[in-house]
């Protein structure tokens, strides 16, 4: 399994907001354990999807110069759930972006139904930071693989998605 919890971006306003899509599918192994007979997308993975959406939005401001990692989820409320076949739309809006890190407000929607809302705080780590020199960047949002998501925000016909 690869640690991609969004499928593609559908909106990207630099330094302001972004929206991404996560299509929930019964092919995802974890749904068969969460829960047997009642597959629902785990809330923790929705948070990860919203964090990937917001983290890329924040990192892009500085052209991905910093490693941006999820530091804290000060609040997150789940109002509903997402099942196989649902299309989750994650929205992230920057509420603070500075040298040390940033914060976003996020929502997860399925159609008109609000599934989750909250906020997420990120910190910047720099490769020069001795304390964190040993971090394997592959585990983080800004490995080049995940950045590829930014390139695939097009439909099969090559048109931008509305």
């Amino acid at each position, binding site marked *: 399994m690869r640690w991609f919890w969004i499928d593609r971006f559908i909106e990207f306003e630099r330094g302001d907001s972004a929206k991404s899509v996560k299509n929930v599918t019964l092919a995802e192994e974890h749904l068969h354990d969460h829960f047997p007979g009642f597959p629902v997308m785990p809330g923790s993975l929705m948070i990860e999807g919203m964090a990937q959406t917001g983290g890329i939005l924040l990192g892009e401001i500085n052209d991905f110069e910093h490693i941006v990692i999820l*530091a*804290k989820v*000060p609040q997150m409320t789940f109002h509903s759930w997402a099942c196989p076949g649902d299309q989750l739309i994650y929205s992230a809006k920057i*509420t*603070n972006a*500075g*040298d*040390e*890190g940033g*914060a976003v407000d996020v929502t997860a929607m399925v159609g008109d139904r609000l599934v989750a809302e909250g906020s997420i*705080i990120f*910190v910047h780590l720099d490769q020069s930071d001795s304390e964190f020199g040993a971090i394997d960047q592959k585990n983080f949002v800004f490995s080049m693989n995940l950045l590829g998501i930014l390139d695939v925000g097009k439909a099969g016909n090559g048109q931008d998605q509305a």
Partner: protein
Amino acid sequence: MPTRDEIFDSVRETLVDALGLDDDEVVPEATLMGDLGAESIDFLDIAFRLEKAFDIKIPRGELFPENIASSDSGFVKDGVFTETGIAELREKMPHANLDTFVEDPKVEKMQDLFTVDMLVNFLEARLA
């Protein structure tokens, strides 16, 4: 300009939200880490919330100075702040009350300088 009481009320609200506390836990002398259970990552959250609540920018390291206590800073010897280190703390943290700290300026006690009152002092000076 808000009064000191008004600043305190906003700080209390900020800390209640950021750290999941009850109102009555937030008293002026409470230390953020020791008494209120803040972790280093919460400092960023607190700074962001204060920026929003007071519509100000808090430059990195101004409210919670960084790197002063690291062993290679030149301000610390054998886990204790030197005279130069204490002078540096006074300069970088005019909002902190160092009176008790200077009697036993161990590095591990530096976190006790971060109190609710320190936040109020910082904001009062900033908003003046």
